[in-house]
Structures are given as C-alpha cells and as structure tokens.
C-alpha cells in the first residue's frame, strides 16, 4: 500500500513548527505503525535529512512512552490500542495520515512528535502513594480484600500514563489520569488512611500544572488505550466531596 503522511516537524520548544508532507510507497500492511515510521526515518537519514523524533520504548503497549495524534485522534483509529500496537492494516491504500504531537499547555513539545509529560509525574509525587517504608509492612494476607474490589482497583491501576486522555479532551483535562490513581488507592484498605490528603493534594497539583477542568464529555475514556472508565472520575469527585465535607465539619 501507498500512504501520504503529513507530519508535524518542530525542531525544539523554542522554534515554530509546521506540517511536512512525505510519501511512502509499498508499505507492508502487516508492519506496525512505528515500524512504518522507522522505514520513513531510514529513508530520511539516507537522504541526509533529520529523522522524525517520537517517543517509544517497549513497543508492547505497556510502557506508555509512545503516543501522538493520528488524524486528530490520540494513538490513532483503533480502540484500546497504543500507537506501537497499531498496524498499517488499519489504514487503506492512498490514505492521508496526519501526525501531530499530543497538545496541551501542560505538555510542551520537545521535538516533532515528542512531548514533555513530567506534569504527570508531579501529580503522582504530590500524593499518589501509600506512605509505608521498606520493611515496615505486615504479613501480606493479614488483610483480606474483596476480590471485586481488588479487581476494580487493578483496572484503575492499569493506567500507563501515556497522556492520551489529556490529548483527547477538549479541555486538556488530566482528570482521568488523576482519578485512576485516586481510585486505585481508594478502593484498597492500604490507601484508606491517606485518602483525604491524597485527593486534596493530587487535585491541587493537577490544577496548578495548568490542566483544564473536566466537563464530563467522556472523550478521554473513549480514547484511552487501557480503557480506564469514567466511573474513576465520578469516584475522584466523590472522594473530593467527602474529603472537603469532613474537613469543613472537623474544623467546626
């Protein structure tokens, strides 16, 4: 198959970028999308041009490194799939394919399709943990946990932190990402003690990083490669309300 690519090229965050056109012919439909970009880059290097920079690492859909917009959709057209797991068979011969980086005020462009997602790390480091020092833990089976709760916590914890939710959101909100971590820990007894502090700090950091507010459009879950659900956001809101209500109450 032949494809017509339009790729966002930007040397650094200090320079302006623009779209460039490239054409690739005889692409094997069974190769992955990133292997297609490898082929393009090989070609560019042979022509003494700068290859397209993009983040990627495990190429198994779990590390969360890869991700950019393909025709306006984070990670491209296939549901529940990261770019690295997308294959060229998802496209047709002579398709136009437009690649842009994930865009949000809180995700600066580093180069071409690579963006800076450290704002996510700062949200986690504000309170996305259980405060337990190494060696202080008790016997693991001391606290039985409902299988249904454990399973649900797992589904929330499956977030790979790729940033597709922010890119999919018309407000660049990080609510799905933040709520996945809040939910994961709120569902388990281990997270119980720090519940209130956690939700307060994580929401405050999320706001301070410049992410937009959630207007409950659901686009984030629809585009999430790990299908993190909207119920996480509702749970984050619930946790937030509970934390604030009990704070106000306790002060009186």
């Amino acid at each position: 198959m032949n494809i017509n690519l339009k790729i966002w090229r930007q040397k650094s965050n200090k320079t302006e970028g623009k779209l460039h056109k490239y054409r690739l012919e005889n692409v094997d439909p069974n190769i992955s999308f990133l292997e297609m970009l490898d082929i393009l880059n090989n070609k560019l290097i042979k022509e003494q041009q700068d290859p397209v920079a993009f983040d990627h690492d495990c190429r198994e859909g779990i590390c969360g490194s890869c991700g950019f917009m393909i025709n306006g959709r984070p990670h491209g057209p296939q549901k529940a799939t990261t770019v690295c797991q997308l294959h060229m068979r998802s496209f047709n011969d002579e398709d136009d394919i437009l690649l842009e980086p994930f865009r949000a005020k809180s995700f600066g462009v580093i180069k071409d399709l690579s963006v800076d997602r450290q704002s996510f790390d700062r949200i986690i480091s504000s309170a996305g943990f259980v405060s337990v020092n190494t060696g202080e833990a008790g016997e693991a089976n001391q606290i039985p946990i409902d299988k249904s709760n454990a399973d649900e916590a797992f589904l929330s914890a499956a977030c790979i932190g790729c940033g597709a939710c922010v890119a999919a959101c018309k407000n660049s909100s990080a609510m799905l990402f933040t709520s996945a971590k809040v939910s994961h820990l709120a569902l388990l007894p281990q997270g119980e003690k720090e519940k209130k502090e956690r939700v307060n700090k994580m929401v405050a950091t999320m706001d301070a990083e410049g992410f937009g507010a959630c207007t409950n459009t659901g686009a984030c879950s629809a585009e999430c490669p790990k299908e993190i659900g909207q119920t996480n956001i509702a749970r984050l809101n619930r946790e937030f309300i509970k934390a604030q209500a009990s704070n106000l109450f306790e002060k009186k």
Partner: protein
Amino acid sequence: MSIFQILTSSIGRKILMAITGLLLSFFMAFHLLGNLFLFVGEAAFNGYVEKLHKLGFLIRIAEFFLLAFVLSHAYNGILLWWENRKAKEKTESYSKENTPSSARYAAFTGSVIFIFLATHWATFWYKFNYDLQGMSYYEVVLGDEVGFANPFFSVFYIIAIALLGYHLKHGFSSAGQTLGIVGTEYEKIYNNLSVIFWFWIPLGFISIPVWFGFLVRII
C-alpha cells in the same frame, strides 16, 4: 483547604455548577406546574399568579436566590470555559468524534439561554410586576405584544427551550459525574430522573407556545 480554596479548585467550580444547575432545574419544574394553569383557563391562571404575589416578601427572597444561582452558574461556566481554552493548545486535526455535541456546545447553549432569560425577565416578569396596563396576567402571556400571539416571540421561545433541554442533557449527565453519583446504586434512578428534566419538562414548556401560539388558530 478553606471553603474559598475548595470552590476555586477545578472540581469545586464544577460542584458549584452542578448544585446551582440542579436547583435551577427544580425551580423550572415548579415553574412549569404554574404555567400549566394556562390550559385550565384564564381565571385559574390569574388566580395562581395572584396567590404568588400575595406571598410578597418571600417571593422577593426566592427571586434573589434564583438570580444568584443563575449568575453563579454563568460566572463559573464562563470561567471554566476560559480556563479550559487556555489549557488546550491549537491543533490542526483534533477529532471531535468522541466528544458528544451537547458537551461541546454547552457554553454556547448556556449563552443563548442566558439571553433568553434576560428577555424573559424584561418582558413577562417586568410586566407582571410593574407594567400590567390594566391587562390580566393571562392576557399578557397570550397577547401579541410580548406574548405567544406574537409568532416571532413564540419561535424564539421554542428554540430557547429546546436548547435548554439540550443544555440539560449534558448538564445532568455531567452533574451525575461531578457529584459522584455515577458508579453508585443511585445512578439508575438519577439517570431516569434526568430524562424528565432534560426531555419531558422542556417539552411541557414548549407545548404552551405550540398550542396557544399556533395550534389554537388553526383549529
């Protein structure tokens, strides 16, 4: 966090939006009940409005709160819209495929509804309170000056209420998320209730201009 900090956080603003929105929706339900007296007849409607006016001071307090809810809802809505715009960077190809249009246009429908409310107050409310000019309430509502006998006015009314329904469709689902109802045992009841509010109640409002403005004349 202080109450001020809570209410200025992104979630806090959304909670305020949800609560004021829900309260306004409840008011709307009562408002519709009153309006339906129009179908009973002139005396019934006039009597109903008279009774309300006799409450006097209480009505003024209620109106004050209603206005405060509307302004708070609008203020937070505009602020969120503005901040969300700032958070987003321009894209060449952003796809709207997974964002429902009721959500995308919530700020727009909200603005139209606000204009409608302003006209609503400037006409019916003002006339009812200060400028009856010897007419009954019933005559004002169905008259051709600002009432449903005026086709332009009726059409504007129908469009505005339809947009209100559309606004509430997003509003109710959004409030369910924001108030954390989604994912709990109350989700189903809430969803059923919300259909009454975003579909049946606006339909009730629309039935009035449709009947008195158009159908009555044809029949």
